[in-house]
């Protein structure tokens, strides 16, 4: 059997693939967090719960309306995004002038409520969500077997991430968003409805989390705590990448997924902590994060 650094290549590529899958979710979720933080100055602690809501929305759409995976990939983020818009209008818009801590506490409280409601209704055992037929099976690449669904997750996540980055960095809408991040008062005085832009930005960030949730549904169990397990790692990713940096969120998301995967091969005992170790080092060396601008 082919070996690399004394490790069987199938194990190495297998873990690399799992790393890329995890990285896809880290990137999607930290991208949403970065977009929200940049625009709203809110550390959205309910992001994990909103990811979970996306997965449950897909599950419920299938159970009660018969809508399958592909339509759910669009409908679920829209529905969960609308709940985000309501949350922003009802609560978050009152917090922008206050310390970050208030936004963090409020969204943390909302996460507990959302998860509690889900646990109350569905229990904590987790529900299965079957793979769409069109993505069953896989490809034998010679050196490893690549399941179609995993390949799809990586491609879709990369596509969404790069699309979002493109819109923010290279379009007129993106220029409005960047300008409003810097000086919302002046942008509004140019005739742009900044409060509406902020509301829609939060809705979009929440929809990104829900999109990740739908993509996660066939891989992981759909369970109330699926978000809170993931979100701690995602926050570490955001800290490493730098709060509010779009490209930083994407690159560190995928990068740390891969590093985590490789750690499982070479030093399995550290695989659960490696991201936090990196976070600690980055905080010591570059407190603003790898891609962050010093405030």
């Amino acid at each position, binding site marked *: 059997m082919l070996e690399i650094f004394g490790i069987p290549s199938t194990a190495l590529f297998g873990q690399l693939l799992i790393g890329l899958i995890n990285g896809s979710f880290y990137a999607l979720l930290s991208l949403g967090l970065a977009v929200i933080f940049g625009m709203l100055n809110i550390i959205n602690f309910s992001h994990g719960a909103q990811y979970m809501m996306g997965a449950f929305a897909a599950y419920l759409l299938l159970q009660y309306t018969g809508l399958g995976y592909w339509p759910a990939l669009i409908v679920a983020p829209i529905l969960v995004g609308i709940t985000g818009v309501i949350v922003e209008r009802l609560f978050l818009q009152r917090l922008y002038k206050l310390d970050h801590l208030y936004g963090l506490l409020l969204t943390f409280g909302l996460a507990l409520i959302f998860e509690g409601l889900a646990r109350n209704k569905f229990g904590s055992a987790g529900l299965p969500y079957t793979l769409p037929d069109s993505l069953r099976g896989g490809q034998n690449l010679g050196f490893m077997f690549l399941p179609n669904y995993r390949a799809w997750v990586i491609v879709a996540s990369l596509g969404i991430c790069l699309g979002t980055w493109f819109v923010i960095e290279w379009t007129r809408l993106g220029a409005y968003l960047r*300008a409003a991040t810097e000086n919302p008062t*002046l942008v509004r005085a*140019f005739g742009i409805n900044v409060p509406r832009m902020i509301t829609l930005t939060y809705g979009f960030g929440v929809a990104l989390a829900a999109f990740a949730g739908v993509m996660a549904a066939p891989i992981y169990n759909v369970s109330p705590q699926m978000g809170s397990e993931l979100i701690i790692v995602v926050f570490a990713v955001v800290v490493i990448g730098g709060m509010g940096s779009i490209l930083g969120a994407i690159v560190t998301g995928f990068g740390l997924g891969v590093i985590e995967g490789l750690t499982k091969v070479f030093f399995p005992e550290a695989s659960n902590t490696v991201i936090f170790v990196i976070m600690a080092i980055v905080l010591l060396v570059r407190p603003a994060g790898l891609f962050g601008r010093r405030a």
Partner: protein
Amino acid sequence: MLDVTAPLLAVNDLQAWYGESHILHGVAFDVREGEVVTLLGRNGAGKTTTLKSIMGIVGNRTGSVRYEGHELIARTSDQIARAGIAFCPEERGVFASLSVEENLLLPPAVKPGGLSLERIFELFPNLKERLGSSQGTKLSGGEQQMLAIGRILRTGARLLLLDEPTEGLAPVIIQQIGKTIRALKEQGFTILLVEQNFRFASTVADRYYVMEHGRIIDQFANSELDANVEKLHDYLGV
């Protein structure tokens, strides 16, 4: 001769607060179509706050701001901009995360009839050369000021609020800005200018209002400037 046209901008009993501090105490003045009107006064007299209150970007304000006959006091700043008023802040407000071109194209058109980019580059030839610059704030102070003025000429706004456009700039740049303001006036723009430098103001303004402690305390036309120089020195403490 009796002026039968209503003023383009009529400000009455304008009061403004920042938090607990009461900054404007009943400011009243007006600006007629096509005029360049300058607010003079010492630091802290309330000139900038007056512009910001017209634009709707101070914490709290009362009174009346009428533009083209419409009351703006209850409107938000984006609605005020869309009524056709554009604001160039004292700190210039050039965005660091936007390229020069993005900065220039940022303010959306609010009315038809804004200047074309070619026309703006005729006024500010330097801007065209710096268009490729990746970061708006990498420009010199004078270029940033030109960018800040240039970008609001595209929008179709007919009333421009310029807050100390000459502050901190070299004399040759100040001359260029003076030339620009006179050119804009010829094109029919109406301009409300805030200035500390009344020698500069005298090269562009039709009328002056003098502010002190959040009130208008005096006014005169440019033709009366010579007769008022003594008094002005007194007001401005120069």
